[in-house]
């Protein structure tokens, strides 16, 4: 293929270079297919790399340092007050992103995946037009839509670059450390970024429409995090809506309406984190047979095929858990399906991690989901105050819980709240996917002292007592 040609053909066209798109492109190339990856950005990475997972986790690690240093004061080590340098933080974040972006670009090149910068729009079910690109038109044999999602802006609110009313993208740009920050939305994005700003010195106020944080997560797992945030955030308002949000010269004026009436308050900045919607508009999908649901998510089957046989879709654009690893797994399935392999997205335990401190992680069936669906389960809980390792870390507020099938003892789900939940959850994923029994988890050796012991002990509780906890009879959830 010669660059600069007006029109090109490709065997597999991938639209969107996020974790879903690049996983699909790389896998397809590894299977011997000829692949072109189009993204509006010059390099692959998508939301996850440039304005999602990677920058947020870069800052969260530093926030944790600050909080740990403060906590150490009560344990015999006193540091001076931290000096936060926004310029230095931004530079470090840029270095992290740069390193990853270079790596991805090299991986694409080594696989002969053609990268094209531009915005793709379908003009039929066999070709796309490219806007702002060197090539005008791409014809394809197969296409994978991986255009991801965008932050939702409430009516009347507009996210301007540099504006005081920010989406997660604006918050991660870290223009300054505002004196006060209003966080709208108690989901994981709002909590993570709220915690970053709080650790860096902002007075953070949280507003949430539901009655608690992390509405989709089991209440007992969210509880320790809630207790922590009570000490960290200036205020939290639940069952409260923002009825007006106006950007002023030096502040943002917000009118909040909740159970205790209306209050008006000014904040230096506001972060709106009320969810994301699929980036499937302006894609020209109406020129194809691709179907969407009421919320704009593309309908796909287990092989990621849309209603249009040559077009597949993956990642945030198809909904479900909007997470990077789910997008990547779907991307690989799409590529393998195109190559004629019997691939299918059949994950039973998609893990999710909230990187606050304490972290919250879960996979497989949750207790509340089981209750809602009427599935009988047995739940065991191992509180971390009985874990030696948790106590040494000063993390004894944590909790590990197992969701077990009553008759067989088969593990259906695992939930963790506490430090390093991000690593602990992997054992749960393996257990659920392999069809392991509580007995298996109880029988294997967990190194001592580690937090992973809490998983073994939660499994022991299924049979009555754990070494470090005399169990009451485990409570059936229904």
């Amino acid at each position, binding site marked *: 293929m010669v660059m600069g040609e007006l029109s090109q053909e490709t065997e597999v066209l991938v639209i969107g270079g996020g974790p879903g798109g690049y996983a699909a492109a790389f896998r397809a190339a590894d*299977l*011997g*297919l000829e692949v072109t990856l189009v993204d509006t950005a010059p390099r692959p990475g998508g939301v996850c790399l440039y304005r999602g997972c990677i920058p947020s986790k870069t800052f969260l690690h530093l926030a944790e340092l600050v909080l740990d240093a403060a906590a150490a004061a009560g344990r015999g080590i006193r540091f001076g007050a931290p000096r936060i340098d926004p310029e230095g933080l931004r530079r470090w974040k840029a270095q992290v992103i740069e390193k990853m972006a270079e790596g991805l670009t090299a991986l694409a090149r080594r696989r002969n995946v053609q990268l094209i910068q531009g915005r793709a729009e379908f003009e039929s079910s066999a070709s796309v037009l490219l806007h702002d690109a060197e090539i005008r038109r791409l014809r394809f044999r197969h296409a994978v839509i991986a255009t991801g999602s965008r932050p939702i802006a409430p009516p009347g609110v507009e996210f301007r670059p540099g504006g005081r009313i920010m989406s997660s993208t604006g918050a991660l740009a870290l223009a300054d450390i505002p004196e006060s920050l209003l966080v709208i939305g108690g989901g994981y994005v709002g909590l993570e970024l709220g915690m970053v700003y709080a650790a860096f010195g902002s007075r953070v106020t949280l507003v949430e429409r539901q009655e608690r944080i992390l509405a989709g997560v089991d209440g007992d797992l969210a509880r320790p995090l809630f207790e922590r945030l009570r000490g960290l955030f200036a205020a939290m308002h639940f069952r409260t809506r923002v009825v007006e949000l106006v950007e002023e010269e030096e502040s943002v004026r917000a009118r909040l309406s909740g159970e205790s009436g209306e209050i008006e308050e000014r904040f230096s900045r506001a972060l709106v984190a009320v969810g994301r919607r699929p980036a499937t508009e302006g894609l020209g999908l109406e020129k194809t*047979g691709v179907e969407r649901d009421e919320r704009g998510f593309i309908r796909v*089957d*287990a*092989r990621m095929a849309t*209603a*249009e*046989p*040559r077009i597949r879709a993956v990642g945030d654009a198809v909904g479900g858990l909007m997470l990077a690893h789910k997008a990547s797994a779907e991307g690989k399935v799409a590529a393998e399906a*195109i*190559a*004629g392999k*019997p*691939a*299918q*997205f*059949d*994950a*039973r335990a998609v893990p999710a991690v909230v990187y606050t401190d304490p972290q919250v992680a879960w996979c497989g069936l949750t207790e509340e989901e089981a209750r*809602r*669906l*009427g*599935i*009988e389960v047995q739940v065991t809980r191992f509180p971390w105050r009985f874990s030696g390792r948790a106590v040494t870390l000063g993390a004894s507020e944590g909790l590990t819980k197992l969701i077990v*099938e009553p*008759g*067989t*003892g*088969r593990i259906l789900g695992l939930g963790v709240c506490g430090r390093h939940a991000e690593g602990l959850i992997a054992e749960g994923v393996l257990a659920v*996917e*392999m*069809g392991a*029994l509580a*007995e*298996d988890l109880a029988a294997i050796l967990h190194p001592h002292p580690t937090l992973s012991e809490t998983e073994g002990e939660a499994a022991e509780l299924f049979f009555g007592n754990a070494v470090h906890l005399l169990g009451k009879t485990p409570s059936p959830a229904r």
Partner: protein
Amino acid sequence: MIREFKLPDLGEGVHEGEILSVRIAAGQAVREGEILLEVETDKAAVEIPSPFTGTVIEVRVRPGQTVHVGEVLVTVETGEASPEDKPAPAAAAEKSPPEPAAPSAPPGEPRRGPVPASPATRRLARELGVDLSRVPGSGPAGLVTAEDVRAFAARIPSAASPAAAAQPSAAPASPAVEEADALPDFSRWGPVERIPFRSLRRATARRMTLSWSRIPHVTSLEMIDVTRLEAFRKKHKGPVEALGGRLTLTVFALKAAATVLKGHPRINASLDEAAGEIVLKKHYHLGVAVNTEEGLVVPVVRHVDDKSLKEIAVELKGLIERAHARKLTREELQGGTFTLTNAGALGGWSFTPIIHYPQAAILGLGEARLEPVVISEGGRPRLAARLRMPAVLSIDHRLLDGADAVGFLRAFRRMLEDPDELLLSLV
């Protein structure tokens, strides 16, 4: 709420297909995305996944049946309230409850809910076309292991088709096809390219493997002197063209073959192993192999015995054009009783064609070439330049013997060597 699942639009102008296998049965639980049926269109074999999660109420099709886009294939009880019942609660939009697995489900009976099995085992099941919910699990608390899946696939020859498995008497087990060893990494010896193996290519592979592994083939070769026929063809080419046809050697060969077949009924036949009978076909529908860009297709000229050379010439031209344009209908690809494959147009000389299962024989023609031939004139041998064409006939040795092949080829040759005789057959 009972939902109907109709044959979806399969794209690329495909309006109908033949049910190859039914993977589910009434009463069975299905999940969204699970494969319900395998349908073959004239373009490819496709697996049709379920758009719903629920319980199969009724399966309205069986293997071998032709279905059209929009036709109801299966009905599924989804457990959702129907819209008129009451406003659907928000939860109804979520996936329906995965039932806890019943570890003691009797073998062969599909069990409900997600089957405990590792991701690698689940992938293996997909590769072997095994419905996991039917595999008895030997692991702890009913866990299905990779060995269980392999054992299940080996026990049931067409594991992919539980419907067939349920009626063991329907067909004798196909000869065991041994699993091939894993391929070496070819790139160790130099650069390689891997391209997908799909659609028509895959369908052809399946058919050829079926035919080659089931039918003991014998191939006979005969040389035919077509010098006179070619002169005759050239003479009449123009008028036929004016009618919109193409008078090729294939047209003569079709007519001659149909005529000869009438005297060799066992060649125009199929072996019905299950019934223990030979099916003699009293109609002469001849397939012609056409090499298209996408692969091999075999459109059928019906009632060749009743048609004139002109009619065949016109019809064949149309079929070939539609084959290249991928416009053939399913009907035009079905019902053949015998097949002709002419490699001559591509410059091929001799080859051993594989029978178009379940027919009993296939006739192959090579390129006619000028050759020095010893002919006898008034009892004196002399050398002459003659146009000669090889004809090969592969037969199903279960139904036919070498003598049948020789007899067919001799009669076929006589007819083509003497156009007058061929024309006489038209009378």
